[in-house]
């Protein structure tokens, strides 16, 4: 019987020739990742085991990115716990402020997540690395602790839903719009416990950054993984970054899927997910007149260079609306630097935006752009739950970078065409 890419990666890491959905396996992981919120809990659990070493210091990646640069004393203590653990266990893949980035932008960029890997991260958006053809999934801190000790994790082999996107995308339409449209269709639990596999003509021509965006939000449909079959674009992306061998898997033609969902996306408009759920997605033309107070462009969903380029294209020579705060957060230091080189940062600042050091910051309501009661934000992040970005009575509208930038200019939710024609 044929296997999907997910089943093949899981089988190989469990030392099995074949696995099938529902099967419980114990698998070896290539990477174990944690951040400044989840790692401290894992470290506490790990230390209870009384071990003097982690299973493999090189396979552990620690990224303090959520509340760093430290937003308050308690966060400083969390970051310190992670820093000291990294020192003690000689974990070289520890990323200090100044070298860090948002974990899910950073790991692929640094060549730490590679095709064919089995990766767990104590962060739900670990699914992002599926864009590279890795099976990557989020776990809790205790799972992270156990994996730091043993290098192993138990998994239930998930079923897979295959998505086929037919057609060519319109200008200003990208990965964010595809995934919001998909979640709008199947719902926030439409892929619960399942792997999502993204295929089709529109995917073949989707740049890597758009694929990361899609894989990133698989969790917003309840997915365990968001998989892409690695192609030329992936090879080009990883070739220069990889410092260890990797393997390209693909699904067999006779692989079994729980279901196959097909979309014709040739006329898909930019999408907006209304509060308070990513599944409230609709075309930007149907949103109506929604005035806004703040715009965030950044996060592990849309904080990559393509996203910033797209935003800059819209903002070039324009001004941010007087009633709007536009906050732009590059995903990593090298994305930041690239944006400086390309003049994007100048475009942003001239337009009246603030450009921040890489951090999760406002995405999870941490700092750097918290909303007051009754305020409304457009954000390129991935969650618009109640209270996600601040006061429980604030609102978040999820979009891609082009709509976000256009809305910052007009002061209301707007299609990019309204600003750049």
């Amino acid at each position: 019987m044929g296997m999907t890419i997910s089943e093949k990666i899981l089988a190989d890491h469990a030392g099995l020739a074949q696995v099938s959905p529902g099967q419980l396996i114990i698998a070896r992981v290539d990477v174990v990742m944690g951040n400044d919120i989840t790692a401290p809990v894992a470290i506490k659990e790990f230390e209870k085991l009384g071990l003097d070493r982690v299973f493999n210091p090189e396979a552990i990646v620690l990224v303090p990115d959520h509340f760093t640069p430290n937003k308050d004393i308690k966060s400083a203590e969390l970051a310190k716990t992670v820093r000291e653990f990294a020192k003690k266990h000689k974990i070289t893949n520890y990323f200090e402020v100044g070298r860090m980035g948002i974990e899910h932008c950073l790991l692929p960029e640094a060549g730490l997540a590679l095709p064919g890997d089995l990766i767990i991260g104590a962060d739900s958006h670990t699914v992002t690395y599926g864009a590279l053809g890795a099976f990557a999934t989020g776990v809790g801190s205790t799972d992270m602790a156990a994996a730091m000790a043993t290098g192993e994790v138990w998994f239930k082999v998930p079923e897979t839903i295959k998505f086929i996107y037919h057609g060519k995308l319109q200008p200003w339409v990208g990965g964010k719009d595809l995934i919001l449209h998909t979640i709008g269709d199947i719902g926030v639990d439409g892929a619960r416990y399942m792997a999502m596999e993204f295929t089709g003509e529109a995917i073949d021509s989707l740049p890597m950054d758009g694929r990361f965006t899609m894989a990133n939000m698989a969790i917003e449909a309840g997915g365990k993984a968001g998989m892409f079959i690695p192609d030329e674009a992936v090879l080009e992306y990883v070739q220069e970054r990889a410092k260890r061998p990797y393997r390209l898997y693909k699904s067999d033609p006779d692989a079994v899927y729980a279901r196959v969902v097909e979309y014709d996306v040739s006329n898909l408009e930019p999408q907006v997910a209304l509060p308070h759920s990513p599944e409230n997605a609709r075309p930007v033309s149907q949103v109506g007149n929604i005035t806004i107070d703040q715009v965030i462009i950044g996060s592990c969903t849309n904080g990559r260079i393509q996203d910033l380029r797209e935003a800059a294209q819209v903002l070039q020579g324009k001004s941010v609306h007087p009633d709007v705060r536009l906050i732009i957060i590059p995903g990593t230091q090298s994305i930041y630097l690239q944006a400086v080189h390309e003049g994007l940062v100048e475009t942003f600042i001239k337009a009246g935006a603030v450009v921040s050091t890489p951090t999760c910051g406002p995405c999870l309501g941490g700092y750097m752009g918290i909303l007051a009661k009754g305020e409304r934000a457009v954000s390129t992040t991935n969650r618009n739950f109640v209270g996600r970005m601040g006061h429980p009575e604030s609102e978040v509208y999820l979009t891609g970078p082009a709509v976000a930038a256009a809305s910052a200019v007009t002061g209301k939710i707007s299609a990019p065409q309204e600003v750049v024609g």
Partner: protein
Amino acid sequence: MKITGRVWKFGHDVDTDAIIPARYMNTFDPAEMARHCMEDADPAFASKVQKGDIIVAGKNFGCGSSREHAPIAIKAAGVSCVVAQSFARIFYRNSFNIGLPIFESPAAAEAVQEGDVLEIDATSGLITNLTRNEKYQATPFPEFMQQLIAAGGLMNYVAERVKKVGV
């Protein structure tokens, strides 16, 4: 083991930001988190909940982030267990790992009302509604999960394994 408690009812897709908002996650002190448990779903919850109470919810409970702070906050608030139509997968895993009993039962999620008193047989998954005199069966756990429960959570299981086979 039998769990008995009074029910607090919630809807579908209760997310981890509602269970414990990230603004309180600069600490992982369970008592501190308990004070904000379910705050964005029901701001009064932490002051109303009594030790042993049971949360009953709709589909996809615990969706969103991987934060283990969510089941920890629920447990620290004194909640004895969560019954839902279904659970998001990371929350499901985390609950096992930290020892918060959870039960998947669409029938219970549908029929049970706020204030009902439930008695749950944790081993068989039989849920008895003492208020309405009804019974519902929860989905049984896979064998491996039962081993985890028997070992007293994942870290105990790992500790055993580390002792036996080394790392």
